[in-house]
Each structure stands twice: as structure tokens, then as C-alpha cells.
């Protein structure tokens, strides 16, 4: 019989580093990965600030992921503030990491959403539309319909319309209609809005239709 019964491994095979801060900021990639995970697991003092500091220095994508997960696990206002700058990153992996982390902590992210939807950077506004999807209750619809009234970028409106298809109600229809009217030269947006209105269960009279 080639099958052999395994022996349980010793739980201390990866003994936690004594100085988590030093390990996180200047250890080897393996030490930094382990330290990032343990900081969030043990909720050490100043955890989110420490992880935020580490994120600024970190070049290894695997360790960055552990830091993002750790910040989402801590899920405080400090965590969100540590993650938010990366929504503006030119590095797509960092942007996605930040977005995933914020999505994982909807309660801590909520107070920042309205400011993010008014951000001067259209990419940030677009990504934030997706973040509102994880908000419970009528907040998401209220924020997205307010955006539709003034948003100058058709792509951002399209992102908001897509989320409204999931979280909206017939109360969103007037804002959708006004948005379609503002972008009457954009056939895709008009088409998307028409279908969302049908989905939300309200009579449609999209401008230009």
C-alpha cells in the first residue's frame, strides 16, 4: 500500500516575526507577506496605518494583495484612507486591488462615496459607481441618480446606469430620462437607459427614441 498516514505538521512552522513592523517594512518578501497577514489577524495597535505605510513601499504584487486583504479585514476608516489613493494609480493591478478591498468593506467605505462620485478624475468616479453596488438600502440609488443629473462623462453615466439596473427602483426613472436627454447624441447610453427603465418597471419615454 503506497498510501501513508500523514503526521500532523507542527503549527509553528512559520513562527510569527518578533518585530512585525520591521518585518513588514524591510523584511524579505516572505517575511513581509507573513507580517502583513499577522498584523491584520492579530489586530495589532495602529494596524491600518502600518499596513498603509507598507503599501506605499511595497513592490511585490503578492505582498500587496495580502496588505489589501488585511486592510479590508480591519475595515476601519483608517483602512479606507490607506486604500483610496490607489484608485488613482496608473497600475491596473493596484487599482483593481484597491477596488476589491473597498468593496470588501462597504460600511467603512460608505462615508467616502459621495466625495468620490464628485472627484475631478472621471476614472475614479467610474470605479466608484461600481462600489455603490455593495451598499445596502436606498443610498446607492440616491447617490447614482444625483450623479446622473450633472455628470459630464457618458462613460461614467453608463457605469451608473448599469448599477442602477441592479439597485434602482422606478424612482430612478426621472433622473434616467433627463440623463438620456442630456446625452441624446450617444446612442449606446440611450439604449442602455431605455432597457434599465423597462427593467425597473416604469413606462419609458426616452428622448430620441
Amino acid at each position, binding site marked *: 500500500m503506497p498510501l501513508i498516514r*500523514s503526521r500532523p505538521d507542527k503549527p509553528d512552522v*512559520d513562527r510569527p516575526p518578533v518585530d512585525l513592523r520591521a518585518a513588514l517594512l524591510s523584511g524579505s518578501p516572505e517575511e513581509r507577506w507573513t507580517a502583513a497577514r499577522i498584523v491584520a489577524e492579530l489586530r495589532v495597535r495602529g494596524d491600518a496605518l502600518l499596513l498603509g505605510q507598507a503599501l506605499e513601499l511595497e513592490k511585490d504584487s503578492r505582498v500587496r494583495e495580502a496588505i489589501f486583504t488585511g486592510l479590508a479585514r480591519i475595515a476601519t476608516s483608517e483602512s479606507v484612507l490607506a486604500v483610496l489613493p490607489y484608485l488613482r494609480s496608473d497600475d491596473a493591478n493596484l487599482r483593481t486591488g484597491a477596488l476589491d478591498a473597498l468593496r470588501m468593506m462597504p460600511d467603512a467605505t460608505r462615508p467616502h462615496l459621495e466625495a468620490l462620485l464628485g472627484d475631478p478624475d472621471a476614472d475614479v468616479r467610474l470605479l466608484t459607481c461600481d462600489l455603490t453596488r455593495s451598499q445596502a438600502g436606498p443610498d446607492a440609488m440616491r447617490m447614482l441618480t444625483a450623479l446622473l443629473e450633472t455628470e459630464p462623462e457618458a462613460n461614467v453615466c453608463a457605469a451608473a446606469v448599469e448599477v442602477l439596473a441592479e439597485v434602482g427602483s422606478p424612482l430612478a426613472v426621472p433622473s434616467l430620462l433627463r440623463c438620456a436627454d442630456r446625452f441624446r447624441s450617444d446612442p449606446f447610453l440611450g439604449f442602455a437607459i431605455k432597457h434599465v427603465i423597462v427593467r425597473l418597471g416604469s413606462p419609458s419615454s426616452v428622448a430620441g427614441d
Partner: protein
Amino acid sequence: MCDFLYRRTGMVFNEAKRYYVDRRLIDRMLATGEASFASYFARLRSDSQNEVEQFINAFTINETYFYREDHQLRCLTSDLLAERIRAKKPGEAIRIWSAPCSTGEEPYSIAIWLLENWPLADSYDIEIVGSDIDTNALEAAREGIFGKRALMRLTPELIGKYFDLISPERWRITESLRQSILLTSVNIVDSAQTRAYRKFDVIFCRNVLIYFDDTSRRIAAENLYESLSPGGYICLGHSESMSRISPLFEVCRFADAVVYRRPKEGGRG
């Protein structure tokens, strides 16, 4: 109550699962003789008479059978092990982890499949570990007694070879197979528990991540990543995708299955 369960297990039960939660809560209240929710919750919080374990056991789902999703077992013997043995030093064992293993069908299936389908099975030491959070399920796995439904995908020849008929339509897996598999209690969301599990070549983690929320899934994925050797593989359930959970793994498409791999040392990232 759902928050308590989430913090202990990572499993998420929302309003849509109210009936499921209520039924199990009432079962536990009846079993413990607690007349009100408040008194039961107090018992649970104080973990009186090991109630937390019993409570968690009541919420786990142990519906499975031998050779379930056997395309992944085919992939194991046709592709994954060939890759893994290239990375092995002489005499180094092949390590496979079934987590969660429920009542044992999966780790025993892996053992039978390897003995039947891997020509190199006699040339390597093979360690199979089965783990689950549900201690009742683990006890059943150790007993190794199964009914007709669990064995429905096995041929009569395999049943005759690896099981003993103990009563009409009840079979017990052979003593040698029971003794060759280590069965342990582990919560895969708890890093302190998974830290003891390292250097696996292949992990079967099927149909459990779907019960977790995004954060618990990410934590579990990182725990499983740590439990794999570099270049080791993870097999998920057919409706699960690691790509939607964590970017730590590489997607590997083989003829029989799509699986995920911890990048080799010096590889990505």
C-alpha cells in the same frame, strides 16, 4: 446570530436563508432544552458544553458522494501529479489535502482513484489529509460507513475491493484505507489553524467558498496559498472560480479540468 456564525466560520447567511437558519436554531434549542432564544444565545456565547462546535456542525452541509466531479480526479492522474513529481526530491512524499472533506467521501475517493488509475502509485509515498470544520462529519469519516447513494458512482468491482458489506446496503471502507488517511478538524478561514498545514502538492477545496463572503474568501484563498508548495495545485467546485477571489493563483487549463496553481518559486509576483 448570523453575525456570530460568520465570525466563527466565515459562512454568510442573509435574509434569503432565514428558513435554513431558523430550522437549525430551533433544532439546537430543542437539543439543549433551552426555551428561549436569549437563553440559547447565552449558552452559545459561553460555549457551555461545547455548544459552539455543535452549533457550527448544524450549519454545515455534508451532501456528497464517491467520485464526485471525477474529471478533476482524472486531471490529477493525467496531468497534475506528473507536474508535481518533477519538483520532488527522491523519497519525498506526495501530499494531498481534501478540505473540507465532509464525511470522508472525497479523501477516500482520491485514495481509491490513485490506487486504481495512477501507474506510479507504488513508486511514491502518498499522504492524504482530510479536514473539516464539522466534527460530527469527521467522526463519520473516521467510521467510514456509507450507504448506497454515496457509492452510486462506484462499480461493483471497486465496492467489492475497497469496502466490506456490514449490513444490507451499508458498506464500510476497508481498515487499511481508513488507517492511511489523516482526518483533522480545521477551519480554512482561520490562519492560526491552517498554519499547521504546509507543503501540499494538490488541495481539493470544493463547494465551500460559495458559502463565504468576499473577505472570508480572500482570507481562505491566502491560507490555501500558504498551504501549497510553490507550483502546487488547487481544485475548486465547478461553480467556483479562484480568478474572481484572488489574483494570487495562475489559471491552468488541462484536458479534464481547469485548476489553479500557486506560482513556482521565482515565477510571477
